[in-house]
């Protein structure tokens, strides 16, 4: 049974802070930091934005584009590592907002930066098994970076929603596979405000090992080569890792560029790959093939072999803002405003 993408939607907050602005505060070289990390600015959620609002916006955009009624969606899964509630599902709120309630299943997912793609796989399984006709998979985050930590330059916010089904497809997902190990490269314990990470350990033995293995497995399983794909989307914790991992797998910079958003909006964590894929779907044409590999610390990778089909021409892609239009729609803020919006200023008073 062919399963694929029925619609998609995205949301990127309007506020941006530049890497040079952060570097100035912490006594680092403001001229070199952007190039060093491949991240020149990042999105910042406003005081009235969180994973729920971002996920709702992305989901509504997806529903508006395909013009399906909300009640056909029988599963909503939201992958994030910054759910507003420790106990109370984001997915239920999103389901309510798109009028999918009450006859559906919903749950929150967490697998660092790949919880969104894990949700896609779950929806694929349910659709493929005939349990449901449509399932909504969302990756959304308002990620955290401790003041002065390297993560502060990249940890940003965004959301993307993918409606998975078997009818009205805009793209077929030909195959998916995963690669998972217990690799402690990045973690945040219950109650901690900011995650900890293993510095350079997050590179070769974590990001690169998993993406390379998963990506190679996918191509082996479907007997494809990098040159078979028009686009390649990788998890993008900074601007450099995805370019390097693409090169190691045999992809070109041209294949990666359309889905590489981190240099301007930072690492949107669970939303990073779904947003990169959304940016590609904004411009993709029927027949074009997309290679996608997500990565989540802890650690694992999910890879997808996607082919765009004729149905994309019928989707009302311009009915809601494109990823590029949301990238262009920006307001630069200073560090003080950023610190206030991200809750980094202690207000005093009773605790």
């Amino acid at each position: 049974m062919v399963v694929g993408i029925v619609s998609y939607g995205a949301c990127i907050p309007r506020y941006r802070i530049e890497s040079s602005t952060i570097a100035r505060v912490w006594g680092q070289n403001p001229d070199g930091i952007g190039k060093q990390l491949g991240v020149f600015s990042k999105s910042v959620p406003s005081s009235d934005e969180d994973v729920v609002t971002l996920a709702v916006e992305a989901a509504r955009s997806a529903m508006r584009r395909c013009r399906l009624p909300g009640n056909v969606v029988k599963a909503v899964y939201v992958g994030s590592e910054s759910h507003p509630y420790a106990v109370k599902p984001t997915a239920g709120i999103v389901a309510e907002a798109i009028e999918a309630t009450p006859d559906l299943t919903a749950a929150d997912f967490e697998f660092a930066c790949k919880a969104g793609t894990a949700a896609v796989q779950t929806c694929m399984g349910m659709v493929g098994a005939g349990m449901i006709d449509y399932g909504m998979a969302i990756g959304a985050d308002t990620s955290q970076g401790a003041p002065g930590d390297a993560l502060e330059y990249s940890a940003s916010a965004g959301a993307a929603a993918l409606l998975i089904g078997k009818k009205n497809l805009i793209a077929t997902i030909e195959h998916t596979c995963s690669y998972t190990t217990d690799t402690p490269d990045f973690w945040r314990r219950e109650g901690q405000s900011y995650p900890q990470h293993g510095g350079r350990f997050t590179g070769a033995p974590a990001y690169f090992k998993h993406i390379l293995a998963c990506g190679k497995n996918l191509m082996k399983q479907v007997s494809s080569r990098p040159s078979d794909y028009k686009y390649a989307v990788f998890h993008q914790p900074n601007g450099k890792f995805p370019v390097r991992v693409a090169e190691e797998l045999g992809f070109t910079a041209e294949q990666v560029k359309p889905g590489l958003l981190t240099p301007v909006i930072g690492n949107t964590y669970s939303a990073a790959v779904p947003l990169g894929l959304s940016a590609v779907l904004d411009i993709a044409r029927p027949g074009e093939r997309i290679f996608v590999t997500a990565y989540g610390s802890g650690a694992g990778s999910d890879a997808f072999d996607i082919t765009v089909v004729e149905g994309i021409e019928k989707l009302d892609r311009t009915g809601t803002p494109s990823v590029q239009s949301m990238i262009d729609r920006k307001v630069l803020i200073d560090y003080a405003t950023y610190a206030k919006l991200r809750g980094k200023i202690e207000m005093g008073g009773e605790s």
Partner: protein
Amino acid sequence: MREVMVVGAGMTPFGELWESSLRDLGIQAGLGAIRDAGITSSDIDALFVGNMAAGRLIDQTHIGALIADYAGLAGRNVPTVTVEGADASGAAAFHHAYLSVASGLHDCVVVGGAEKMTDLPDADVADIMSTALDQQWESFFGATLFSMYAMMARRHMHEHGTTREQLAQVAVKNHSHGALNPQAQFRRPIKLESVLGAAEVASPLGMLDCAPISDGAAAVVLCSGDRARKLPGQHFRVSASAQAGDTLSLGSRRSLTAFDATRVAMENALKLAGRSRSEIDFAEVHDVTTIGEIMAVEDLGFCKKGEGGKMAESGRTALGGELPVNTSGGLKARGHPLGATGIAQIIELVEQLGCKAGKRQVKDARVGLAHNVGGAGATAFVHILEAV
């Protein structure tokens, strides 16, 4: 004192060895040395291990016993000792292993150095490296090993006109050497502009002026001369093993631009070996920073005080120059797993003297020198090895 020979050597590659624990590394290097020497574990009378900071880096002390246990030596009740002298721990272990054979106490010993540094965040490692300074008067107030070297560099520039480019040239040279060493952490050349433009660590030193954080282990087998002559393979005479010390605190020294411990250790080493400086064909020196190498070649007496920068700039210390320095890539490019460094330097001498250094081979290498410093210069070792 009896004649002492290096009869075998083994080391792991240096670098970010995520898949290997300290015990894995120690055993890999030790077994390599034993195999190279053509001996078996039943020939080993004692094990000496140089390690600076495993107690904090991996919460494990008693490293000698650990490695002996996992190498299968514990069942024979082989004595072990862990020797600590900051990042000169490797040379310190070698010195004591040498003394045990030279004195006649032992006939055949293994001496290794090992460090596992990448299990902790970089900032924690920097703090741990700074424990080699005077905690009460220096590191407690925020001084780090590299900030101390930065002060030395600034003063050297002030007193002797050493330039930023001359400092950078040391890193460029050592990376060009490291590119030829299969065991080196960094096997790629770098450009002068890259060194000058790298992120600042402590002005004037940048990221590429400083040795990296590394995992690795190195080991050699030492035997008495008589025992060595019964073994197959090449042997190398340890003609000098000398150590000198200085105040722990940099502020108590007579100069910020000289390590007297290095100078005195060198004078003693030359006397022990019965050699003059001009007979040294090549040297491995402690370039934990670029200024470290410049001061080392001066304090070892290979040039006048203040001319170390010019010596690097002129190419006289590069491969093919009159005194090749750090042909292995040095601490900068080969890597600096603290306790392993002193032994890795000895192994570079052995490779050069045995004409096994491949593309980085020094022509007609007969006498080599290794210089290992602990912390900011309170401990210095000079070893001289010769082809037999």
